[in-house]
């Protein structure tokens, strides 16, 4: 059997190793990126706030009095334990600052992803049911416009419609912390803005993949045994057709997190995107570093999870994956 728990564990372990390596590389790159900024490093890190006392503090904290390799080690080993130091502005641990906003961004990204799937898959199925029909043509044009309209433009248009025109939905903030309903209402517009491109993308992918699958011979087998066309398309072909769709969801999440900067700024939402934006504006680089490391870790783990889901969806993938490392 290809899907024994042991095989899956081995697969996860081997992927985890490469994931950790990439994450390590990304951390080093991030360290170097900041370290290689021309000028005196302590001044760069502190920006306009540099007082002699703060300088001494940061030199000590980041080990700037030691050599670069030791600094790198210090940075990486602290990053591993989640210790990103103290924020020089608010004097709070940077980890706390990041962890505080992450749920907002995750809620946004996952609701956008869910929206993209919930809308994109049915649209793709409908288009694939009647290829070449007028409904297929309309959906094709709709999809391509969704895909190509930048999130920035979608956000602004939504903002305009709901902030200036209608006033049905809130356009700023993340909502009252105590009220899940209010938070949900605040989530609607930004997640639509983020999801729209992926609605089009997923619907196109589902359509193409489904049409491919429907030409395969096992579809004919089910037809010959009287399985209804709806069940064939909606269950048997769709599951197979979703394999390539799931494969791109990892990239999708990265893309969504990336566009969270734009969306969170326009809709004035607290989140990792606006945290990075504000920290950069204040030249508060330690916070930027910490936030970016979190995003990279999330992105990499998301891709790992996507691989796992795919291995479960398509047993042949599971087999080849375990065969490779077994």
């Amino acid at each position, binding site marked *: *059997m*290809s899907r024994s728990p042991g095989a899956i564990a081995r697969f996860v372990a081997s992927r985890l190793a490469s994931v950790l390596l990439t994450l390590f590389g990304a951390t080093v790159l991030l360290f170097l990126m900041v370290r290689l900024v021309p000028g005196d490093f302590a001044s760069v890190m502190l920006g306009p706030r540099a007082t002699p006392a703060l300088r001494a503090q940061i030199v000590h904290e980041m080990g700037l009095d030691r050599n670069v390799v030791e600094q790198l080690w210090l940075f990486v080993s602290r990053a591993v334990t989640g210790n990103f130091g103290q924020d020089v502005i608010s004097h709070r641990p940077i980890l706390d600052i990041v962890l505080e906003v992450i749920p907002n961004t995750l809620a946004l990204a996952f609701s956008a992803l869910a929206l993209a799937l919930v809308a994109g898959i049915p649209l793709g199925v409908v288009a694939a049911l009647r290829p070449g029909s007028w409904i297929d043509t309309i959906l094709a044009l709709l999809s391509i416009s969704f895909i190509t309209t930048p999130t920035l433009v979608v956000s602004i248009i939504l903002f305009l419609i709901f902030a200036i025109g209608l006033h049905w939905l809130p356009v700023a903030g993340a909502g009252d912390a105590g009220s899940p309903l209010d938070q949900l209402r605040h989530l609607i517009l930004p997640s639509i803005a983020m999801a729209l491109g992926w609605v089009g993308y997923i619907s196109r992918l589902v359509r193409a993949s489904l049409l491919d699958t429907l030409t*395969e*011979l*096992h*579809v*004919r*087998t*089910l*037809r*010959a*045994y*009287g*399985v209804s066309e709806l*069940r064939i398309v909606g269950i*048997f072909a769709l*599951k*197979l057709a979703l*394999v390539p769709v799931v494969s791109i969801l990892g990239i999708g999440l990265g893309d969504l997190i990336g566009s969270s900067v734009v969306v969170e700024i326009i809709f004035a939402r607290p989140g990792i995107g606006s945290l990075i934006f504000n920290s950069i504006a204040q030249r508060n680089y330690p916070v930027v570093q910490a936030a970016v490391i979190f995003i990279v870790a999330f992105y990499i783990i998301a891709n790992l999870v996507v691989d796992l889901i795919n291995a479960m*969806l*398509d*047993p*042949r993938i599971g*087999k080849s994956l375990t065969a490779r490392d077994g």
Partner: protein
Amino acid sequence: MSVRVRNLAVDYSVSDGTAHALRDISFDIPEGEMLGLVGESGSGKSTVAFALMGLLANNATVTSGSAEIHGRTYDLTRPGATTALRGRGMAMIFQDPMLSLNPVFTVGRHLLEVLRRRHPETDRKSRLAMAEDALAKVKLGDPKRRMSQYPHELSGGMRQRVVIAMALLAEPTLLIADEPTTALDVTVESQIMRQIIGLRDRIGCAVLLITHSLGVVTSYCDRIAVLYAGERLENGTVGAVQAHPGHPYTRMLLDCEVPLERERLPLTTDNRFTVIAGDLPDPRQRPPGCIFNGRCDVSFEDCARIVPADYPVDDSRGHSARCLRLRSPL
């Protein structure tokens, strides 16, 4: 209750006109018997199967034909005429078992889907039992484990048994087997054919076996129909046709005594197999007279002018052939 097919004709619209894939095909399969429909590639034999199932490609149209299955007559020119029969009155076994099962669903799911259609009244538990039973009947060992396996974990022969099990569960009146052993190892051929015969005897259905191998027909079938360029040239019991082939084409096939597909010829230097010279006629432009005229070794003037009717060879055994030499002297 036998299965009767009458005057089946199918056209394909191709880029440069219309190809007549089948013309005026009629045959009977008595209950519990197996008819071997034999012909070389391009003769249209699979088209017969898909026309009956209603699974023809989009560019194909049935221009005439009817089928009598389980006492009811179906007008095959009507799209979806036999849709209601699929998985109930009719079932099919396909040529390529490696591709005929969905790779992301288990063997069990395929079987359960057939039962869902065939026995909607049953519950999941009894369906599971029936499916496992079917796997055991087609001699797939350890049915419980097989149920949760995926197609890629099985060999080609095992996958073909799964499809046979599906057919078994569908309990059809007519089973169509389209080259069920062509894609498989020669050593598996007899096992699979035995399973198909076992299935036929178990449910007493009529079987239409489509093959290019005369050997398979003579070993396993009760009756034979010879198809050439979309026309049925000869029809009769295997014994009668083997003893007295009524059509020169059938005689030439029997003389070859090996499967028609060239790639299956053994690589010996002293093979003395005759090869039928010439090519199939252009399906877009049927030549006048006998369809086999161009390749026939005993043709005469009339053959180029007159389209032969179905003349009896041995009336008592239902043996007939389309050859002008069988015309009763006037």
